[in-house]
């Protein structure tokens, strides 16, 4: 192992981290170049199946949510939010939306990626969050760009066949819409190949996040937060599967070499909500100094899974790619009700050996957050695991207080010690 560790404990810049930076740079450069050369540009919500677009010759896609997260992580989130607010958008609206609207309305100024190329089509879905439909409607009206809404029934229980058929029908309409707008013909074989790539990428990504099973954990959730970006910008590409394979390999090698992000790990924590993008390094380092590690998160664990579970769904069997994508249309956390989310959390608590839960009550994401108070009660009552709720906004640093958050997280660590003392007594 010749790799040089570049940072303090808690957050490690690895070879895969550098490769990630290159991939993201390439993704955004290719996006701008493609748009500049006349490609058809689609803006999508995060769980719109972009594998469909890979079935076309010259369609490129941009993911505003991912761009907003990147902006927040690069420290320009607040600046972009303020632009949207000065245009009349309430500070109570999701900070991703405000960052994106602020960026778009200022022509990409201050964006780490020079913004996103103007879309020809907007595609959203309402099961991850319906706010996103309203957010895309802003551009639909301001720029007169068509907006395709994929209507996906919310899952209080497992996906029904009837729901899946309805979703597939909408995919077919989406394909027809793009064919009509571009004159290009969709190739099912290429989408099938992209689905294979995505499935393999998810499998390799699962290998990576399962490095958290070991004691001490081979990763922090902060590592997995940053590695999510290409899941959105490169999905369906062979490069993504290769990247995650190398990432998992590299992480396993590091663990064999005795390199762990929190070597003296005493507290194994689970994070419930979107990443606090503006706090990644600060929070991970400060927790590491307390020998605490947020080893897993509902936000990242759900990749490659469905039904609110965190377990890998299955390898793609080469069947109808649209059926497979419709099955995966419910990937993510937010399309699920409390029962399914709690089921997944219970599994994670066992699988990762979780000592405590951190519920990040996120003012910007109501769909994720409004049920956490009850989830917290169930975690305590049913699983007997201590937890804490902290106030966070995933991308607007003005709505976060580090000291308040850490007072509570330190109290959580004390609770974990108290539980251990009782068990030891």
């Amino acid at each position: 192992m010749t790799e040089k560790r570049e940072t303090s404990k808690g957050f490690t810049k690895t070879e895969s981290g550098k490769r990630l930076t290159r991939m993201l740079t390439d993704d955004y450069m290719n996006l701008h170049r493609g748009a500049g050369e006349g490609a058809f540009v689609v803006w999508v919500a995060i769980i719109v199946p972009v594998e469909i677009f890979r079935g076309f010759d010259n369609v490129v896609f941009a993911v505003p949510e991912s761009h907003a997260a990147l902006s927040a992580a690069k420290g320009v989130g607040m600046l972009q939010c303020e632009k949207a607010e000065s245009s009349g958008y309430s500070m109570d609206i999701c900070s991703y939306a405000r960052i994106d609207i602020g960026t778009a309305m200022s022509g990409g100024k201050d964006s780490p990626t020079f913004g996103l190329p103007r879309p020809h089509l907007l595609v959203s879905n309402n099961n991850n969050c319906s706010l996103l439909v309203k957010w895309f409607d802003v551009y639909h009206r301001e720029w007169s760009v068509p907006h395709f809404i994929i209507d996906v029934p919310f899952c209080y229980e497992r996906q029904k066949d009837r729901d899946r058929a309805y979703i597939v029908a909408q995919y077919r309409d989406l394909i027809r819409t793009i064919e009509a707008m571009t004159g290009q013909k969709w190739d099912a074989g290429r989408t099938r190949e992209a689905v294979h790539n995505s499935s393999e990428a998810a499998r390799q990504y699962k290998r990576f996040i399962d490095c958290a099973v070991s004691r001490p954990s081979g990763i922090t959730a902060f590592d997995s937060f940053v590695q999510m970006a290409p899941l959105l910008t490169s999905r369906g590409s062979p490069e993504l599967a290769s990247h995650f394979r190398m990432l998992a390999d590299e992480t396993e090698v590091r663990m064999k070499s005795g390199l762990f992000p929190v070597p003296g790990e005493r507290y194994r924590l689970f994070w419930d909500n979107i990443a606090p993008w503006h706090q990644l390094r600060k929070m991970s380092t400060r927790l590491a100094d307390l020998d605490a590690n947020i080893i897993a998160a509902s936000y990242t664990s759900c990749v490659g899974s469905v039904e609110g579970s965190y377990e890998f769904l299955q390898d793609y069997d080469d069947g109808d790619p649209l059926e497979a994508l419709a099955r995966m249309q419910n990937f993510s956390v937010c399309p699920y009700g409390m029962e399914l989310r709690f089921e997944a959390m219970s599994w994670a608590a066992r699988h990762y050996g979780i000592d405590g839960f951190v519920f990040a009550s996120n003012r910007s994401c109501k769909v994720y957050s409004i049920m956490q108070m009850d989830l917290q009660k169930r975690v305590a009552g049913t699983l007997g695991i201590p937890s804490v709720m902290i106030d966070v906004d995933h991308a607007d640093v003005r709505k976060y207080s580090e000291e308040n958050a850490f007072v509570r997280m330190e109290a959580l660590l004390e609770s974990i010690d108290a539980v251990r003392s009782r068990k030891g007594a």
Partner: protein
Amino acid sequence: MFVSKLSDSIRQLKQKGFRVVGCFPLYPTVELLHSLGVIPIVLWDLKDQVRSLEESDCHIQGFACSVARRLAGFVLSDEGALLDGILMYNACDTLRNMPEIIQLGLEEKGRDLPLFRIHVPMAPRDQTGSDDYFAAGIRELVRGIESAFDVRFSPERFLESVKLYNAMRSLAVELEALAAAGRVSYGLFSRVIRDGYFLPVEEQILALEEAVRQASSVKARDDDGRGIIVTGILPPPEAVCAALEHAGLRVVGNDVASQARSYGRPAAETGDPVACYSDFYRNHMPCTTLLYTSDGRVRAIHDLIRERNARGLVFIGEKFCDCEYLEMPFIGKTLSALDVPDLQLEIAADDADNVESLRTRIEAFAELL
């Protein structure tokens, strides 16, 4: 907990032997429930009905809208225990979490309620055919209600129920016109409409008929009341209505979700609930919560302003209602282009009586007009 009309109404209905189902959000399948002998009560605009949020604060963070917090507060209260079931359809991100929050809260109290759900397709109607999908959902809903209450659906009774609700809608339109003419205050009009949601439709009709009769006997105002349109997911609190009128503004039309958006268009008069509700939702008045309709809202507001000769628009912003707050900047921009001023007010959960800070803005807006 302070509970008024709503719990009184449910208690009286229960004493008469009726089964009562609480419905949310705004546009539930009330005719269907009614035709099956179950009284639907729309649990919306509960600000004067549920004054304490203590119960919901055990389940929901303070950054949820007051609609969700009061809904949970009511259903989990002792008065809520009088309900025989809950019916809901998909709307916003907050409300979709409510069924399980309510169910868990009820479990904690050792209570249980049948829950009926229906998914209203939100894809634009010219985009994807959703009729078959929706029809299956309606049939499932009918079977669910039949099974829960041991009742049988009848097309004839359904048609009768549709006609009754349409009669109620027609009277609401009539009363709105009287309010626009200044023959009944907008505050009183809003109260009559809101309280009607807590009554069986037959009583709602009687209340509206009485309100129309009384208002019709009042002479139309011949002042030059500055006409405004009010828009929002909820009507203004009574104190805001009073402040608007005190400032010399007259509400000549509304685009309020629980008012004109609810009664503005009759349901198709048929005995087939699939045909009725397909038409009902497809051709609904534009509403921010019905994603596929909201494109039409800008035009609907412009038309209303022109038809009613309104001089301005007042937006009643329900704090934390993302749907509304993402639409208003664009609507405001289009109004500016038409030289129609707008005033955006924000009402939070505890602001119903605390309107002094808004009064100055309302007065300044009235002077501007």
